[in-house]
């Protein structure tokens, strides 16, 4: 192994030779023990890796977590103020939202709304068809009424 190869492998795998591929590992150990320049480079990398891994971080303030919770409280409060401001400035939005909520509630109260719609349409067509067979003038009106009712639902 040449010195440049060793530097390249140091950059690739770091100074923990145990994590190197086994073939390169033994060659690296041999180079370190015989080549002063290689040993020097190795010790430099070991040194900065060691300093890096053991660098101390000053502890955060003891109330840091409480500050996070306070920032959440503040955010919630500001959001509610903004919401209130929007509602007071644009009451129509509030009523529109109320209507939308009501529609949603009504829709959700139906069990299988698609099924109900389909059944109404089928029933309307069936009864309308019967009326047409009987040559009734009001047959078309009944069919229309059923289909209309189905769409409304």
């Amino acid at each position: 192994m040449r010195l440049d190869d060793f530097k390249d492998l140091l950059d690739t795998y770091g100074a923990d030779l145990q994590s190197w591929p086994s073939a390169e590992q033994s060659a690296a150990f041999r180079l370190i023990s015989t080549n002063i320049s290689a040993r020097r480079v190795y010790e430099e990398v070991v040194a900065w890796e060691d300093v890096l891994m053991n660098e101390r971080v000053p502890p955060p303030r003891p109330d840091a977590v409480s500050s996070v919770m306070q920032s959440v409280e503040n955010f919630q409060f500001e959001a509610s103020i903004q919401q209130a401001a929007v509602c007071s400035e644009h009451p129509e939005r509030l009523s529109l939202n109320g209507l939308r909520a009501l529609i949603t509630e009504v829709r959700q109260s139906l069990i299988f709304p698609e099924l109900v719609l389909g059944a109404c349409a089928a029933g309307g067509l069936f009864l309308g068809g019967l009326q047409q067979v009987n040559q009734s003038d009001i047959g078309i009106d009944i069919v229309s009424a059923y289909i209309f009712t189905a769409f409304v639902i």
Partner: protein
Amino acid sequence: MSVTGPIPKGAQRALGEPMDTPVEMTVQDGAVHPYTAVTDAELMTMAASDDQIAYRMLVERHFKRVYALAYRMIYHGVDAEDIAQETFLKLWIKRHNWRQDGAAVSTWLYRVTVNAAIDYKRRPRTSPLGDASDPIDQQPTAVTLIHKQEVNVTLRKAMMKLSEQQHAALVLFYQQDLSNIEAAKILDISVNAMESLLKRARAKLREVLKHSSDEMIAAIRDE
């Protein structure tokens, strides 16, 4: 021959333990909290239902690691706390859109922290970053302490000469003790790109620190 060996990665941790798994934690009245055994994903689901206790548990689990990551990216304690706070507030705002099949909570937090720290570093400022000499720790002798502090400042200055991505890669790998796979997810790059980034970062740091290597080697021999 005597060759100084490296300390295995993860053998020592400067601040904060990995807290992705549930940990025992107590509340003010001294009782063990009922959410202690709950996973991050489950806590996030509860937080999505506006459960602030669950959210607080998440903050308590991850705050130190998020703060440490921010600190190691910018080397400023107060601003690192601000970044951590901003990150957790974003988590709260995002809670309703959180997808359980998405990234782990910790991965998401680290990603947001790294990005916030990078934004912070890009802001114009009067004093250069990396000059902060926060109290490191209590060592037995003043000489050793001063020496270690000098070495740390040298390393910080060298780290600040790396690109933002290279700096983040080294911090995630060596200081946050994450695997290449985890670090790649946080930086939103492939594992191959992460390995390549680490290689370039190591090469650059080795080059920058070439002239300071004597004091570095002396510092670890002092220990």
